[in-house]
């Protein structure tokens, strides 16, 4: 017997319906053999959606390297802005900018992080926007550069991720030379503390990669990552931040 009622499809356990797939990057129809990849999408809870990604040899940036591109939406992703470069030196740099992540803080501030590398050094780069992701300041180094040829058994520098409590405090994490590093900002990303290791990887220990951080906005910050070695697994570490 049927019971006819208004159906909340999300609550029914039957899943949800997704709209037809559409191109997000406005260059999709015109670019040719440009690799747009590794998208990360964020929302500020105030109507702005921001997607960042890496693009290889894009005409939006320098056509010889990888750059970070972005697009914004303010209408619940019904439409997206034209593609633009997030790293402001995209037209002149020759470094590879990859693995981006972006998230919103408070007061229209967005922060973006990515891996910047060349044949000499690799480091985590960051950029800050104070206008809801419409424009970005020049890239800065969040981490200490390490030689690209550094000889540890995992990627040298990878997978930056960050979270904000919405009141000006941020924690950023990344993997570096087999260890997990983190740093903190208490002024909405204007400045950062010295990077600290959550776990390091002496040559006799396994690798630690793919970190993620989240916060409940009440002082609890949790970092999880993947741990290679004799005891493979997902590890977590809780960071308690007590902000004066």
């Amino acid at each position, binding site marked *: 017997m049927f019971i006819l009622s208004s159906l909340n499809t999300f609550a029914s356990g039957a899943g949800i*319906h997704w709209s037809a*797939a*559409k191109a*997000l990057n406005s260059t999709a*129809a015109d670019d040719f*053999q440009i690799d747009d*990849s590794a*998208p990360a999408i964020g929302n500020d809870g105030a109507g702005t959606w921001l997607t960042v990604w890496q693009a290889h040899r894009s005409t939006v940036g320098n056509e010889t390297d990888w750059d970070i591109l972005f697009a914004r939406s303010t209408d619940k992703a019904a439409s997206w802005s034209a593609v633009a470069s997030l790293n402001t030196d995209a037209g002149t740099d020759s470094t590879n900018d990859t693995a981006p992540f972006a998230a919103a803080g408070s007061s229209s501030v967005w922060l973006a992080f990515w891996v910047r590398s060349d044949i000499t050094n690799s480091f985590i780069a960051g950029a800050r926007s104070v206008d809801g992701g419409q424009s970005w300041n020049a890239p800065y180094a969040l981490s200490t550069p390490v030689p690209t040829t550094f000889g540890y*058994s995992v990627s040298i520098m990878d997978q930056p991720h960050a979270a904000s409590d919405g009141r000006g405090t941020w924690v950023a994490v990344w993997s570096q030379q087999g260890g997990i590093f983190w740093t903190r900002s208490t002024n909405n990303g204007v400045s950062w503390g010295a990077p600290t290791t959550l776990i390091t990887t002496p040559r006799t220990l396994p690798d630690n990669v793919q970190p993620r951080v989240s916060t409940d906005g009440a002082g609890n910050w*949790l970092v999880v990552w993947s741990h290679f070695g004799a005891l493979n697994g997902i590890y977590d570490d809780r960071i308690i931040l007590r902000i004066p």
Partner: protein
Amino acid sequence: MTTIGATRRDLEPRLATDAKGTWTVTWSRGDCCGNEETDIYFGQSYSNDFTFVKRYPPHPHFDTDTEGDACSALATDTLGNWLMLFWTGDTIDGTFGADYDIFSLCSADNGETWSAPQPVNSTAAADSPSDHDTAADLTTDGRGTWVAAWRSYNSLDNTIGSDPDILFATTAVTGTLRGVVQDAATSALVDCAALVITDVEPDIEAMRIVPANKVGEFEAPNLAPGNYVIRLYSATHESAVKSVTIEEGKTVFVHFPVNLATFTQGIRGVVTDVDNGKPLVGVHVMASIDGTPTDETYTCGDGEYAFRNLPTLKASVSVKLQFRLPNYTVKDQDVVFNPGAISEADTQLSKGIFPGTIAGSAVSSATNEGIPNVRITLLGRSNISTETNAAGLYAIPAIPEGRYSIDASAKGFQSSTVSHSVPNGDSIEVNFVLTPVSAGMVGDVNLDNLLDAVDVQLVINGALGLAVAFNVDTDNDGQINAVDVQRVINAVLER
């Protein structure tokens, strides 16, 4: 520091909290004992105790699937609703292609139960084997809208290029179609009926085929708002057509009173899966006489179909039946149709096998130049092999779907073996960087009992143009661990 997953190869953790004490972690877990298929796992912690008491797949699908699943994204609206994304080459019981597609699982009870996988990329059922959709991310505004973005090779019907672009989809408010099929004369419920639901604006919703259950009921949830045509096919009753309008958040009920069919002549049969003998539902069956399509129908829940309205002819003719079902090989079958009689034509369909290709290059780590005459061998499959050409390039065509260990060997270089899956009908690129054998290299290092301490730098030039340098330990035989090599490959592909 605590461990959430351990002793297995656990990768790609994703983390979210509802800021009310619940924290959820999802990840990809590789099975043990040589089975390299990865599945999605999740764990939850309550009341901020960070114990993560649950550590198992969110849905039974992961207990029986056969292809690897890659954890991709997790988000919550902090209202008890959670959504996770993963990408996989699994066909989800034959419903979707073997290319990589994005799927979502949702929970509306704070992670207690999760829905079955649903496709995020609307192209999942009909895209080609090379239209891979991967690397999805997800977020929500916490007010009912969820947006996913991912990397895709799909050209969206040639409206964009086939190079990788960023696609997106949003959750949409939908409606539901429900109904019942009854015998018009007796009100008995008709249990063998297939409902073909087609939207009037075909860009909104792909065609769905929904079977009636054993008591004649059918349901099609999550239909995008719009106008639809429903065609009913039954092996026992007359066909019928109705039009409905689906509105946001509402359920439309459709009653199909249908007449028992008079069946004095025609063709009927049952379609089953050749591997397991199970009836196949929704198989499109086209009947052609003298090359002209004459009638069509669909199989119902018991796999049955019937043609009752073939033209009355004076003599026996050969009718060509063509059976089509996504992910199965199209099958043609000739049946003799005798006017005034009923011909039986049961058939079995087999999962489609569309050969793929492994191609790539072998270059020297010392010179970055191609190496000619490198022997590329697919181990364990009758050792199919080829050699690189003068430029160091190779291709092995006609590869059946499956996972392969691929070995590259050349005189003067260390050999290299990697594992890769070839999706059905797809082409994959596998590039080797071979290290010249010289003093100080692995082949010459023989520090008894100390081999495990020897590090060898492995540089992979990925298909994306990225170079990733890793150091991997040699094992006790002085060989590079194949798992480490695979990890490097995965790191490149992940970028």
